[in-house]
């Protein structure tokens, strides 16, 4: 099963699920906003997305990931709008029988998300300036 959402407000993490007796691995990834961009301190990142397309592409990517890897479920929430330093922009949970396939799936899913999902970000500097984020197709 997959579940994907793009949300405009603070991400509520998916709850841990103790009823999953066949999933030995539950991997949780939280991407958070770092405090600097271009070596400058920032207040926040401002994310914009192509409404309608980003949701469809994200859902399709989750489906592809579940088909490609031996995992059971993938849930993902991506936040858009202004996100403060330290806050979560991306939350992903993958359940699988063993950790190895879950870790591989998580790495691939996030890498593909960064290549294909129409979402962009701007850095809001502490000086008040708004500049494009330095992150493009990053492997980090």
């Amino acid at each position, binding site marked *: 099963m997959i579940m994907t959402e793009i949300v405009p407000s603070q991400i509520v993490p998916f709850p841990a699920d103790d009823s999953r007796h066949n999933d030995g691995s539950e991997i949780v990834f939280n991407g958070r906003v770092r405090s600097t961009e271009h070596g400058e301190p920032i207040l926040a990142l401002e994310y914009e997305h192509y409404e309608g*397309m980003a949701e469809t592409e994200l859902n399709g990517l989750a489906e592809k990931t579940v088909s490609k890897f031996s995992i059971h479920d993938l849930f993902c929430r991506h936040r858009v709008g202004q996100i403060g330093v330290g806050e979560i922009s991306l939350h992903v949970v993958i359940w699988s029988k063993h950790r190895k396939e879950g870790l591989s799936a998580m790495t691939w899913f996030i890498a593909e998300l*960064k*290549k294909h999902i129409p979402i962009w970000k701007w850095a809001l500097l502490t000086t008040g300036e708004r500049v*494009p984020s330095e992150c493009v197709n990053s492997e980090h």
Partner: protein
Amino acid sequence: MKVLVKCFSQVKYAVGTSELVLDLNPGSTTADLEAVIREKGAGELEGVTLRTAVNKHYVSESVPLEDGDEVAFIPPVQGG
């Protein structure tokens, strides 16, 4: 024919608006439209790779446009 162009990130910055309606000659393609958008960007999009989406789906090559299509030229994405 009229098409709606949605602009994001660098494209929005370059053309100065988040969307615009353009009147194109019948038979125009996405490549023709991209040239128009790059020209409107006045050099700001030089060297920027743009992917094309028609009606919210990526297209891998230039395709003919139809009246009422929604087109976006997608600059490098930055999700995550």
